[in-house]
């Protein structure tokens, strides 16, 4: 800041004459004048309008098919079956048929959705052990107390992965079959990998270091979660690298949803072969569901969602509409302000003079 004056003589105690101490720092003092505020409002309205229109157009190009299969098709049997906990071990498959009237072009994403499932309860969210999931041996055998009561099974073996989140993993599986207008039914190929966050797959979830041991050996001495049919190292029978804590489905599930109604990615259409190179053609489809996940306890619903995407997601009409509404409101306010300024404004008048 300013320079310190020589301290001597009768003015020895005089405060420094620095801009800081004398509160005279150079400063910019903006003021809300009509010259700045009104153009700003119009500009904002315009920008919002343009964004809104653009987003709306973008959203229009997407397609989405939602299918609540909780009791649909033949699933009502399974639905009834799952009401009884004692049947949990029994498998149940069912089929739902649905048409696609207009082909879904481009990448098609397959989601499963749950309604009224609260992944965002505080105790639920806390009920996990990230130390265990990142492969720490101590945590593997000795899970955090946050996992209570899913820490140990009735035999006293530590559960891996522990906690309520892992325990309640969504374990329905789907196979989608295309019934073309001509020709045989073709199973729709779904890519079941690469559906997680990069950091989750590569940083956050790690299997314990195995030192040439198999996964099964590594997880020896741990128990599978109570509701699971398979241990964690056998989640994907097809791909041994997709087992353990780094299983994609597990990782997707472990990323808790913020709201009780959510959808999670199940797979992406593999467009390598005909007739799916351009997406899902129109026609009839069936989904074979291995119906394991009970929802009637919490009055939930299950659904599958097939959608094409824009750069900002699926058929998300809220965003463009919100932008359009906002822009209209801003415009309205701007006009009102202009009128008020023109008719009654005091500063405005003065500035005219």
């Amino acid at each position, binding site marked *: 800041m300013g320079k310190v004056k020589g301290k001597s003589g009768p003015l020895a105690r005089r405060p420094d004459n620095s801009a800081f101490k004398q509160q005279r720092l150079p400063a910019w003092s903006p003021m809300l004048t009509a010259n700045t505020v009104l153009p700003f409002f119009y500009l904002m309205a315009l920008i919002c309008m343009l964004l809104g229109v653009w987003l709306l157009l973008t959203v229009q190009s997407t397609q989405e098919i939602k299918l609540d299969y909780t009791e649909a098709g033949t699933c009502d049997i399974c639905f009834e079956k799952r009401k009884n906990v004692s049947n949990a071990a029994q498998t149940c498959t069912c089929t739902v048929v649905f048409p696609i009237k207009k082909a879904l072009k481009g990448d098609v994403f397959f989601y499963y959705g749950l309604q*009224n499932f*609260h992944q965002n309860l505080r105790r639920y969210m806390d009920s996990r052990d990230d130390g265990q999931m990142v492969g720490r041996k101590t945590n593997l055998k000795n899970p955090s107390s946050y996992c209570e009561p899913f820490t140990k099974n009735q035999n006293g073996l530590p559960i891996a992965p522990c906690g309520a989140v892992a325990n309640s993993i969504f374990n329905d599986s789907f196979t989608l079959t295309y019934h073309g207008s001509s020709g045989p039914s073709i199973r729709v190929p779904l890519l079941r990998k690469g559906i997680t966050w990069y950091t989750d797959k590569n940083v956050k979830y790690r299997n314990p270091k195995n030192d040439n041991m198999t996964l099964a050996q590594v997880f020896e001495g741990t128990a599978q979660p109570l509701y699971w049919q398979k241990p964690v190292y056998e989640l994907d029978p097809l791909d041994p690298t997709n087992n353990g804590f780094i299983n994609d489905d597990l990782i997707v599930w472990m990323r808790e949803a*913020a709201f009780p109604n959510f959808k999670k*990615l199940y797979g992406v259409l593999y467009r390598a072969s005909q007739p799916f190179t351009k997406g899902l053609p129109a026609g009839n489809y069936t989904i074979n569901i291995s119906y394991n996940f009970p929802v009637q306890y919490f009055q939930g619903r299950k659904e599958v969602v097939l959608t094409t995407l824009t750069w900002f*997601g699926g058929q998300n009409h809220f965003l463009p509409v919100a932008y359009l509404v906002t822009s209209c409101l801003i415009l309205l306010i701007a006009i009102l302000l202009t009128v008020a300024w023109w008719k009654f404004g*005091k500063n405005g008048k003065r500035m005219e003079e």
Partner: protein
Amino acid sequence: MTVPKDIPDKWFPIVLPLKRKKQKGLNGAKSTKKRTEEERRVRANDREYNEKFQYASNCIMTSKYNIVTFLPVNLFEQFQEVANTYFLFLLILQLIPQISSLSWFTTIVPLALVLSITAVKDATDDYFRHKSDNQVNNRQSQVLIRGSLQNEKWMNVRVGDIIKLENNQFVAADLLLLSSSEPHGLCYIETAELDGESNMKVRQSVSVISALGDPNNLASFDGEVVCEPPNNKLDRFCGTLYWRDKKYTLTNQNMLLRGCVLRNTEACYGLVIFAGPDTKLMQNSGRTKFKRTSIDRLMNTLVLWIFGFLVCMGVILAVGNAVWEREVGSLFQSYLPWDPPVDNFLFSAFLSFWSYVIILNTVVPISLYVSVEVIRLGHSYFINWDQQMFCSQCNTPAEARTTTLNEELGQVEYIFSDKTGTLTQNIMSFNKCSINGKTYGEGTDPLGPQPKRLDFTPFNPLADPNFCFYDDTLLESVKVGDTHTHKFFRLLSLCHTVMSEEKREGELFYKAQSPDEGALVTAARNFGFVFRSRTPGTITTTEMGRPVTYTLLAILDFNNIRKRMSVIVRNPEGRICLYCKGADTVLLERLHPCNQELMNITSDHLNEYAADGLRTLALAYRDLSEDEWEAWSESHRCADKAASCREDRLAAAYEQIEQDMMLLGATAIEDKLQEGVPETIAVLSLANIKIWVLTGDKQETAVNIGYSCKMLTDDMTEVFIISGHTVQSVRQELGRARERMIDLSRTRDGEKEEGMEGGFMENGFKEAQEGDGTGGGGKQLQCPSPSPSAPPPPSNLMDNISGEFALVINGHSLAHALEADMETEFVSTACACKAVICCRVTPLQKAQVVELIKKHKKAVTLAIGDGANDVSMIKSAHIGVGISGQEGIQAVLASDYSFSQFRFLQRLLLVHGRWSYLRMCRFLCYFFYKNFAFTMVHFWFGFFCGFSAQTVYDQYFITLYNIVYTSLPVLAMGIFDQDVPEQRSLEYPKLYEPGQLNLLFNKREFFICIAQGIYTSVVLFFVPCAILSNATQSTGVPLADYQTFAVTTATTLVIVVSVQIALDTGFWTVINHVFVWGSLGLYFTIMFALHSQTLFKIFPNQFHFVGSAQITLLQPVVWLTIALATAICIVPVLAFRFLKVDLKPQLSDTVRHTQLVRQKKRKPVGRSVGGAWRGVGSVSEGRLGARGSRRSGYAFAHQEGFGELITSGKNMRLSSLALANFASRHSSSWIDTLRRKKNSHAHTPPSASGESSPAPSCVSVSVPPLSNSSSVLGGTPDIPIEEDRGATLVQNTQTVAASPTQTPPASAPASEEAAVLTPAAVRAHGGDSPGGWTVTLGTVQEALFGWKTRTTASNSPGPPSVAKETSQIE
């Protein structure tokens, strides 16, 4: 001798139990078993004996901690604060796992931060206290130990020691005076630090001991003192000295108290009676009770409300939790069973309540209090650093001694000011005199250059070089040998009670009891009549270089009833002469009838002097024949010896001889105003601050000062004087004043002309007369109409009083007015007045008046004073300001702010106070806003997460939000913000009003902030919620996961509150930029760091947000969300603010706007502001000149002089004439007498400059007396104001013609009226305070010299410029 000030015990309501406790503590083991002392026994030179009693040592300790005790004691103290305990409680809650919704560190980090900041502050404070204690304790004093003097530190002085004091040394402890170097065991002390009185006091030792004299004898002195225990009564001491089997009574007259300074005494010896904490000084220096600002109180209320709100939200959410757990949660149990202790939904709801209390506690931000303290500290530093409040003469910067009151400075409505030393410099200067009908004094020429100061040295080698006088005609007259002039100065050199001290030949020092007397004797000294020395029977002077010794026959001393003093001397030739000086009121009545004509002229002069606020004295002499003297001397002796009614008989005897005197002339002494006082008062009253002067001075003096500092002006509608002696009379006078006010304002509102007429006829000073009449007791029966029980008029009526009134109330009337049943009446009357002067008030009354206003007006009061008599007032007002002037440091020590010039007050209030208030209000508004916006999001989220007390944000964000992400920008705003530049707030004092009306932060503003905060939280929650629940990454991964949502919401929040602070900040300095941008940057940096892989790998369970920031913030949709939410949050605010500025601009907006538009000629605003004021001014304009009666004052000390001491030679006694029964009975009758006389003489005497000056008392003259008188005195007309401009022009031209050398700056173009007016105006005032002022700003002058701006406003060339042109022609 000096009458000890009549200080009521209640004056020091201060002895704090805490303080006592502390002292006990520091005395360690000794005092642990200390019982209450009932009497004190001290034996001189016997330490062993005295140690038995374990009296306190002379070591004082005001510090609270030492290194060991600091931490526990400080923590204990801090946890006594409710807020801190609350957060401790939260911390404990968080340790319960079932409840803990947040990690423990979210509370402990801010709490630790807050505690440590406070601790550091306390430690620094205590360090400085240690330092000052050490400094005092290590002062050296000479102690008589085993017969020899040894240097000891103060702290080692013990009770019972004999110590030696030298001239100008501070007294180290409360001492019993044993002997002194002066004859008769006398010694002089100055008690300024103790009670604020700067005049000297005399103390005398018990005569037997004083004979002991030198150290050797004293060493064997073994007297024992038995006296009262330590107490805080400064004016009382009773004890007994036992020595050589005899008893001697000891009084306060024998005591030297700690804090006094020895003066005029080479050395003295004293016996330590009370030491250290037992001394009266320390007993009186209790801590000021802790002052809180109104914002503080409001803040506490609001915090309580927020607590209530918090509990409500907690209850709502808990109920929600109960319902949810019953309806949904119970079904969800297979996935998430209840925690073991929870077995039903009610218990779960109970736990959820506490969890939500923890989460939502951020609505009561822990950092609020500490931030407020930091801001106030910053403001205090700005006050300390302000160069414009630095007084270079006394090398004193302003000091904010309390750092907690700054914003209150922006809300002051009432200022209570002391007079002496505060408004005035307490320096008396001989200014003018009238000798034999001719007036001398400095020529106050508004246009000419400053006259040269007279140099007396060639004429008189004994002259005092500091004496200033400008009129050389007087010196000429002395040199020529004019007999009257010689007699005049001879009188001044003889008739006084001043003591002289002549260290070396020619180096004279006068020790006067009152500064007035000193000024007069010094004047005589410089004009060749040098008072050299006196003995009980003689006075030696040097008259015109010739030494003369007069025999002093008698001193007829001053007292408050006589209001005069005389000496009777016999000159070397043997002629006896009586010289008398006294108040004109009494003196003029005792003149020989042949003086009639001279008396008329002289009283004219007296009027003029008084009109200038000078203190006047009339001088007269009487030649006595030997027979007359013998006869009188006999009767005097009789009276003197009379056993009963001695005082009365003496007075009668004096009265007898002081008759038929010949008038010599009159003196005028200027009680110099401090620099810039009138401007300051004008500016402050423009800022709608009411100024009350509370002074111990007499009514006349106080009124005079009131006029000279422009508190009272001649265009005031009416000045009421309340001086009744009984309850009824006071009540009547008050009632009458109110009626007049209502009448006048009604007529004035109805028809202005008539209103003026009405005010015209009535002279405020008549009121006094009537009051005195009723005071006599006869009148109240005659007029029972305003019955004592009549309720005061409805206050709204009194509130709407228009017009300018002033009230002068006397101490004895005030005593009645302050009684419980009359105080409302008094308050309503006094508050309707623009100016209130209370004179002859005791310190206790000062405090009572302040308390009264605090009680009835709910207004912020400020008391300013410099002496110990102001301490009570300073302590009881909301803000106490001490003037660090000449009267010791008691006031400063008790004050919250101190500086050395009254005029700094305007800067303190209008600049610093206003800014502080503004900043604090903006800070609080924003602070509550940002915390509500932050916290309420959790509330909305509660409805979606099953009321499970899940937070929206990451716990680190919650921890750091208040202390890192958002604290610095708001602190920067709270410390540096300015709405208008400092010059503007002085220019437009009206800018101060929002503070007084409490407009910027009140409950309404608070609710607006809260509403805005809640609105923001709604937007912050629902917009991301709606957008993200359907959005996905481009890879198809949904964005509706919790971590993305948390990051998005947090980022939006930080951005929204940053934009909001940017909107709130009106003054963007570099620091603001750095802080705002820095905070944003810091937010992103810290977030990326916390979400980094490194931290996750170390603590996977603590940092499970790994990667969230990187991935989330790469999503365009997240940024679209942030932008949308920000726009929705900010646009309404922006629109609302714009509308407010545009449709209902505050003055500050307008000023700012004009500033922005760079309209240098601040016309529009200046007119609107000044216009309102001028409107009032011009209404009362017609009443100029109505102020016919003259104000007079007379210069004397308020106590009797040293007269008796001088004549008696040795024996001193205290004649305790109560000051309070002084009555100003004579105040007006003589004026009327004079006026009658004057009107009988049709002509007015020609004045010195040859102009015809209208008699000031003529009611019909429309010239304001102020300018009139100064025109007469200065020999130059002031800038005129009357409607008759032609006449003025003639006058002006005459003047300029008479003094062609005094041309104004000739190059000033006529169009620049303001530029011309400014120096003119300032110089025109030079007559009142030759010290000159700093030229202040245009509006100030408009305010001060309203009549001048009228010329400007009328767009006609002002008289000064015309005059100037004329001069150029000539």
